[in-house]
């Protein structure tokens, strides 16, 4: 494990967008360790199509912020080689739908290198993927591919829902000696929030209760945390005390935090944009029932994307979990 990102005693508490917080986190990681490298399509001069790497090539040079040829397998595959040589590559997949050409390198090489080498070879790589829908985009630009990664042993998978987490978690992911798929909720890039540099962050793979409640637990991550918090606020008006847990880490899942919450509320609803079948909701339901079958008062419900490809953008709002669907599920959970 490389040095963990540290709190800056005289640091700032700044309000930043989630995108800018990522940019600041990447900047700190580049400063902290000369072995950290960024690579990807259009991340250099352009600063990435979402401008997450804006200004970094200018400040750190073309040898540390590297524009790649247009080939995702090549980007990840060469990053493996760089990692073997002692670098800590942070690669960007331009959109969620374009990670699949790299899928072979990710599953058969990146994920397995430490295991195959009998623990000799670490694979400290971060694969950044802007993911999820809700931005009115064309096909392949709104996917939620987390299951593919969370089902693959050897990978770790995290996602952030606030600028503060974005800032710290990207640094923690880069400091990790394990390969981390870092999912960035692209529809939240422009959400603003306070980034506090002055206190050390919680552990990367820890979940967090982001709203307390006693009636039911909403389990969410990434873009859906905000939606769940909004639902909880509306629910409160209707007399529902809804707890919201931000998973933050999808692999491993922090079952201690999750179970503790559900043990209290006795009811759980998982909310994600990914397709329902074999989405994270399936795993959470399986684990919660296995652990708390006799404690829970109703089965884990799932409010998710449907088992269809992501639809054309004019109708995407009906695909995405929203307040109404979440509150309906709360009603259903409570009425069972």
């Amino acid at each position, binding site marked *: 494990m490389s040095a963990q990102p540290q709190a800056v005693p005289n640091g700032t508490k700044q309000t930043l967008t989630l995108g800018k917080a990522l940019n600041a986190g990447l900047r700190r990681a580049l400063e902290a360790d000369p072995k950290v490298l960024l690579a990807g*399509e*259009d991340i*250099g*001069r*352009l*600063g990435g*199509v*979402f401008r997450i790497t804006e200004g970094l090539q200018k400040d750190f*040079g*073309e*040898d*540390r912020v*590297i*524009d*790649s*040829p*247009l*080939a995702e*397998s*090549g980007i990840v595959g060469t990053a493996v080689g760089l990692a073997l040589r002692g670098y800590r590559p942070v690669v960007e997949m*331009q*959109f969620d*739908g*374009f990670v*699949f*050409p790299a899928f072979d390198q990710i599953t058969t090489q990146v994920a397995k290198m430490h295991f195959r080498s009998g623990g000799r070879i670490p694979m400290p790589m971060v694969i950044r993927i802007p993911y999820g829908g809700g*931005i*009115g*985009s*064309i*096909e*392949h*630009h709104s996917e939620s591919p987390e299951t593919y990664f969370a089902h693959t042993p050897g990978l770790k998978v995290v996602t952030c829902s606030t600028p503060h987490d974005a800032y710290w978690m990207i640094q923690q992911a880069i400091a990790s000696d394990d390969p981390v798929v870092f999912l960035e909720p*692209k529809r939240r890039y422009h959400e603003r929030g306070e980034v506090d540099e002055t206190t050390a962050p919680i552990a990367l793979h820890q979940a967090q209760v982001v709203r307390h409640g006693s009636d039911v637990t909403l389990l969410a991550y990434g873009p859906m945390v905000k939606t769940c918090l909004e639902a909880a606020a509306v629910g409160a008006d209707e007399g529902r005390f809804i707890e919201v847990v931000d998973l933050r880490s999808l692999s491993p899942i922090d079952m201690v935090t999750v179970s503790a919450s559900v043990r209290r509320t006795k009811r759980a609803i998982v909310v994600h944009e990914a397709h*329902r*079948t074999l989405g994270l909701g399936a795993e959470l339901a399986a684990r919660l029932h296995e652990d708390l079958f006799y404690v829970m008062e109703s089965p884990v419900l799932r409010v998710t994307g*449907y*088992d*269809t*490809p992501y*639809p*054309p*953008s*004019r*109708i*995407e*709002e*009906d*695909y995405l979990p*929203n307040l*109404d*669907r979440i509150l*309906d599920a709360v009603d259903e959970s409570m009425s069972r």
Partner: protein
Amino acid sequence: MTNLIGHPDHGSFERDPQDMVQLLTPEGERVEHPDFAWCGDDDLAKQLLRDMVLARRFDVEGTNLQRHGELGVWPPALGQEAAQVGAAHAMRAGDHVFPTYREHVVCLLRGVTPADMLGIWRGTTQSAWDTVSTNTHMYTLVIGAQTLHATGYAMGLQLDGMVGNDDPERNAGVLAFHGDGASSQGDVNESYVFAASYHAPVVFFCQNNQWAISEPITRQTTIPLYQRAMGFGFPGVRVDGNDVLAVHAVTSWAMERARQGQGPAFIEAFTYRMGAHTTADDPTKYRLAEETEHWRLKDPIERLRAHLLRSGKIDDAWLAELDDEAEQFGAEVRAACHALPVPKFSEIFATVHAESTAELEAQREQYQTWADSFESIGADSHGAANGQGVSP
């Protein structure tokens, strides 16, 4: 800091390559080439000009519609009209085309309607046009994936006995477009391997517009792209992509070879993306205005117009008529865009499979119940979509 990783020049490494087929100079002068002759007549030349002008109009409309929030995003083909019009005119109805997301003009000329194309960018469909009657496949947004489809389709033509027949009318071929950036993708290179191995009747048409979003061609290759084909065992030709006559001549040659069973060929159309990558892009971040200016002088429409005017094939009246036609076409495009129906969300469940499943039917019902609950209480908060899009 070491500085040893090879860094591309920013900008195209060649601006005026010698080794390319040209039949019409930027100044509109007709020249001959030892290997390629243009065999069209005056009517065709005028047709090519007309199509390029309408093509550009389509592009202007697309960009404007996006600015007015009617489209989520629009990828302009500005500057690439000759490459598209020349290639499309080299096709026969029975040939099959695999476009990228930028071949609007090719698709129009194949009979795809503006409405069909605009649906993608408006977010009402995902290229759902009639690929059989137009013999033109849908847009593929995953860079390079379509080149393998094209190769497989060409193999299908072989199996169908539609290649190398004595009666040329019974033959057909495939045209597969891809960009300069796409040339780096594994899939694209695999398609070269398969095409060569099976001697398939497919022509790869690489639109080298010098840029892949913000990355110059020099990031993808250090030698001229047309030479890539040599390494796979089939001919590669570089053509002035802003010269519609040369593009037409070279593509006709390559397609005819393919139809006759002489296997694949590769065409590098040397051109330039005059506009942004898409309306979401800002090229001033990564390229110099000076470069764009250099290319403006090579405008594909200007040179043919100059040539036809100078040689008396067209006059101002003809051009004025064309302007009117473009005006009317523009109005049609706008009308088509506004008339695009927003699909019902409930319909998507049934199109996942040819034969649907109980699980999807259950999800449709679940959705429908939920949606109906809104209608009954008169709420309209759901189903609203903004027209804003972020997608390069």
